[in-house]
C-alpha cells in the first residue's frame, strides 16, 4: 500500500495485482465460521486498492502455484511456506502481466530485513534475477539501500523521493501511513497465508503422508482450513465441524465423502476422508458421538451417508476422552 502510494505521489499511474494461491487467509475462514459473522468480511487487497484509487487485478494461480509449493528450489521457511520461491514466482507472473498490459515496471512493498527468510539483503537480487524482472523491479520502501533500477536511472521515478527503510520494526511504515493520511493502516504482510501457520502446515504434511503423494486439489486446501481433524488410523481421517457455519460448508462435500451425523442427539457433521472399512466406521461413529450432545449417553444413533446418497444407521457408545490418543489429533 505504502509502496504504491509512494509511486502514485510521483504522478505515476499504478494498478495492483493480487495472486490467489488458494492458501490466502483472506475471507475464507471468516466466511465459513459462524462466530466470525459479526466481523466485516472485507477483502484486504480490494480495500487497499479502493483507498488508493487504483484498479486491482486478482489472478488465480492455484494450479501453477502447486509446483512452487511442492518443489521450492530455495526450500521452506519455518513451516510449509516457500516464501522466496513464492516471491520469485509472483514477480515473474507480474513481469508477464506488465508486458501483456503495456506497463513499464513492477513495484513491491518489500523491505530489507523485514522477513528472516525472504526479505534479506541477499534475497533481493535473487528475486529480481530469478523472476526475470531484473531491474524492472523497484522496491520503493527500501530503494535507497539498493542499486538504482531502470525506472530510477531513466528518471521515470525520482530516486530521491523513495525510501530507505530496513529491519523488522514497522514504525517507519506507521509514520509514513500517517503522513499519507491513511489512518486504518492494517497491512498484515504475513499472517495472510496459511502456509506460515504451524497447525495448517501440519495438516498439509499429514495429508501428503496419508496419501503417499505430495499433491493436492483446491478442495483439499479448503478442507484443511475447516473443522477439527482427527486421524484414528493411517488410511482415513475425520473432519469434524466445530460449529454451524463449518457444518454448512462441509455439507457441500457430502457427494464426495462419506459423512456422519448423530440422529438421536444434536451433533456435528463429520466427513471421512480416505478409505475406511465397515469396521472402521464404528470407531468413527463413536468419535462422532463424542463430539455431540450425546457424549455421556449409553448409546447414540449415528447416520452414515455415502457419496451415492445411500445411508445406514449405527448404534454406538461414545468413545471416552482417555481412549483417544493425542497422536490422533492433527
Amino acid at each position, binding site marked *: 500500500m505504502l509502496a504504491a502510494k509512494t509511486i502514485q505521489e510521483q504522478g505515476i499511474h499504478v494498478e495492483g495485482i493480487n495472486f*490467489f494461491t488458494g492458501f490466502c487467509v483472506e*475471507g475464507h475462514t471468516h*466466511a465459513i465460521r459462524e462466530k466470525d459473522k459479526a466481523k466485516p*468480511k472485507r*477483502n484486504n487487497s*480490494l480495500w487497499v486498492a479502493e483507498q488508493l484509487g487504483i*484498479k486491482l487485478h*486478482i489472478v488465480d494461480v492455484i494450479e501453477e502455484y502447486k509446483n512452487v509449493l511442492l518443489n521450492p528450489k530455495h526450500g521452506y521457511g519455518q513451516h510449509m511456506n516457500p516464501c522466496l520461491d513464492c516471491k520469485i514466482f509472483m514477480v515473474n507472473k507480474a513481469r508477464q502481466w506488465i508486458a501483456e498490459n503495456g506497463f513499464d515496471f513492477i513495484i513491491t512493498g518489500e523491505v530489507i530485513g523485514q522477513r528472516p527468510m525472504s526479505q534479506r539483503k541477499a534475497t533481493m537480487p535473487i528475486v529480481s534475477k530469478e523472476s526475470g524482472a531484473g531491474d524492472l523491479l523497484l522496491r520503493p520502501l527500501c530503494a535507497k539501500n539498493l542499486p538504482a533500477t531502470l525506472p530510477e536511472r531513466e528518471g521515470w521515478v525520482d530516486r530521491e523521493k523513495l525510501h530507505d527503510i530496513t529491519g523488522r520494526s514497522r514504525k517507519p511504515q506507521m509514520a509514513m501511513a500517517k503522513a499519507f493520511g491513511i489512518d486504518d493502516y492494517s497491512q498484515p504482510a504475513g499472517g495472510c497465508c496459511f502456509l506460515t501457520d504451524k497447525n495448517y502446515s501440519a495438516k498439509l504434511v499429514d495429508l501428503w503422508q496419508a496419501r503417499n503423494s505430495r499433491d493436492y486439489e483446491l478442495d483439499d486446501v479448503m478442507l484443511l482450513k475447516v473443522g477439527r481433524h482427527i486421524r484414528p488410523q493411517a488410511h482415513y481421517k475425520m473432519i469434524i465441524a466445530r460449529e454451524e457455519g463449518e457444518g*454448512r460448508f462441509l455439507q457441500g462435500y457430502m457427494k464426495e465423502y462419506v459423512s456422519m451425523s448423530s440422529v438421536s442427539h444434536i451433533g456435528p457433521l463429520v466427513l471421512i476422508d480416505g478409505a475406511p472399512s465397515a469396521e472402521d466406521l464404528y470407531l468413527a461413529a463413536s468419535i462422532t458421538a463424542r463430539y455431540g450432545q450425546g457424549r455421556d449417553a449409553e448409546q447414540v444413533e449415528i447416520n452414515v451417508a455415502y457419496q451415492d446418497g445411500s445411508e445406514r444407521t449405527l448404534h454406538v457408545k461414545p468413545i471416552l476422552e482417555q481412549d483417544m490418543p493425542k497422536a490422533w489429533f492433527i
Partner: protein
Amino acid sequence: MKREILNARRLLCPLPVIRTQDKVKQMQVGDQLEVICTDPGVMQDIPTWCRINGHKVLELLSGDHEYTVVLEVGGG
C-alpha cells in the same frame, strides 16, 4: 444488452470475484451479469470490485444462505 448468469456457489472469496472479473472481461459495456454465490463475503467484495473498476451494482439480494449480485458492465 445481454444478461448472463454466473454460478459461483460453493466458491469462497476471492474466487467469486475472480470469476466475475474474468466473465466481465468477455462482456460488453451495458451488459448485465447476475452472480449467484454462497459466500456472504461477496456482498462486500463484489461491490468494492465494481467501484474500483467502474462497473455498477444494480441489485444485492440475500436469501436463504444464497447471495446474488446483479451488476452492469461499465467502461472501466
